[in-house]
């Protein structure tokens, strides 16, 4: 191919030359279809008019556009709850923060988007002694909360102040780079990590057990199964152990419909939580923490797909961050996992 091009031609000049069997690249064709600015638009359009091969490609690009644009435009029609008041509250709070508190807030933000997660995962993976998990993709990040509220445990302790003596001074960064911390903050983070490992490796909400929770077995992280979990009863799609009827606090139950179960969808419904309060759902079995916000009636709902029976959640603990109460749900079996599944 290259010997067909005159050696004196520069790359730019070759881009303008679509004769002798040369075609514009796909990105140029797509840009032309999408009416984007192109230096050599005239030549490209002329080529498209004359070349059935490129016309066919353009037609395919138009089809893609017809598929993508309506989908995205449809999503644009969604209405989201206003965040203005929450943002303004945070701005007001930001203005009142002392330097130390500002460092703390930065630290929390660093945690939210952080790179620390990988380290924690590595350490936890070693602690659990399941090196095969990661190669099989079974070990899932234990830390995934995305919220500005303080985490229960070490972060709450951090907020009380003793752990942080000083933070970065008024060093300011470009907006997207705020997670890069000075060395002193990293040292503090390392200390925090040590505490967090203790928190997440052990039952996650242990320090704030309620009476009802205390009666249940300690929520240790169960081993993941290499074989499908046998079904103990075919009459029920899922067998669960839920808090007793006298339970007055928050409660979570397994509420997947049969059709959802056929699609391996697990739905957990919760009630009795603080209205509009933050609820943390720790799913044991694949060790993920999901943040949720209760609705106006104190209900929560979480839905997820179990792609592999080995990842079936065996225990789910919901922690109401406002009232600091706990609800636990144990799932003994899932009928959809009784049939042969891919592993």
């Amino acid at each position: 191919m290259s010997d067909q091009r005159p050696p004196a031609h520069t790359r730019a000049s070759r881009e303008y030359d679509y004769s002798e069997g040369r075609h514009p690249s796909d990105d140029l064709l797509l840009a032309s279809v999408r009416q984007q600015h192109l230096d050599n638009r005239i030549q490209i359009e002329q080529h498209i008019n004359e070349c059935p091969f490129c016309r066919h490609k353009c037609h395919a690009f138009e089809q893609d556009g017809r598929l993508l644009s309506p989908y995205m435009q449809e999503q644009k029609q969604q209405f989201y709850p206003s965040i203005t008041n929450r943002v303004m509250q945070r701005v007001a709070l930001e203005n009142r923060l002392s330097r130390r508190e500002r460092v703390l807030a930065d630290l929390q933000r660093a945690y939210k988007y952080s790179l620390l997660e990988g380290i924690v995962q590595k350490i936890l993976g070693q602690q659990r002694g399941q090196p095969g998990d990661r190669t099989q993709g079974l070990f899932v990040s234990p830390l995934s909360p995305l919220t500005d509220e303080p985490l229960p445990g070490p972060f709450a302790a951090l907020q009380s102040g003793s752990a942080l003596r000083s933070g970065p001074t008024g060093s300011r960064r470009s907006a997207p780079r705020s997670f890069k911390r000075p060395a002193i903050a990293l040292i503090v983070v390392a200390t925090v990590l040590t505490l967090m490992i203790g928190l997440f490796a052990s039952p996650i909400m242990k320090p704030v057990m309620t009476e009802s929770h205390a009666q249940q077995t300690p929520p240790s992280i169960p081993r993941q199964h290499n074989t499908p979990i046998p079904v103990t009863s075919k009459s029920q799609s899922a067998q669960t152990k839920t808090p007793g009827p006298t339970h007055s606090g928050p409660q979570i139950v397994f509420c997947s419909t049969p059709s959802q179960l056929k699609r391996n969808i697990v739905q957990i419904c919760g009630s009795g939580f603080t209205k509009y309060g933050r609820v943390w759902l720790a799913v044991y079995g694949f060790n993920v923490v999901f943040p949720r916000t209760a609705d106006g009636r104190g209900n929560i709902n979480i839905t997820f797909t179990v792609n592999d029976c080995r990842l079936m959640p065996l225990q789910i603990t919901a922690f109401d961050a406002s009232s600091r109460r706990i609800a636990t749900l144990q799932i003994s079996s899932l009928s959809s996992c009784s049939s042969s599944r891919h592993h």
Partner: protein
Amino acid sequence: MFTDIQVVESLQARDANAFRSLVERLEQPIIGYLHRLVGDREVALDLAQDTFLQVYKEIGKMPQDLSLNAWIYRIATNYGLRYLNRKKLRSFIHLDTSEDYHPCFAVEGPEGQAETRILVEQALRSLKPEDAACLQLHYGDGFTYEEIGQILQLSPEAVRKRVSRGVTKFRASYGTAPKKRM
């Protein structure tokens, strides 16, 4: 109607009203963009809050050659991509927000429409986050390649390549999905 310069000057003077009106004006498109990018409504709400907080804190550092909207989208994109990169760790679990299965969100019309929508969504999820961001900004928010280049700090040529790569990958993923194409 204020110009960008007036808004930026007001924000730099810490004018709360100006900031409030900016958030009110941009919250829906920014949340929508983040929702489409990260695929989780609640996470998108969280990320949008962080985006606006960052805007308030860093308004003094806004590049002169960039429009206010592009700069805010840049911050939102960075937050979204950072979240997506972290989410790779959870690739075995597909977490759906509860509203995905709520009846009021069901797509009306033939079953095929809903199926197509799901397949399109799955195909978009299979893209690299950087390519997906380009596609979202171009097809979803109607930005030109030049504007996307400003937002993502890329040349228009790089954006052109990314969009093309994203569309090709999207077509491959959509084509391999278990559905007969029209």
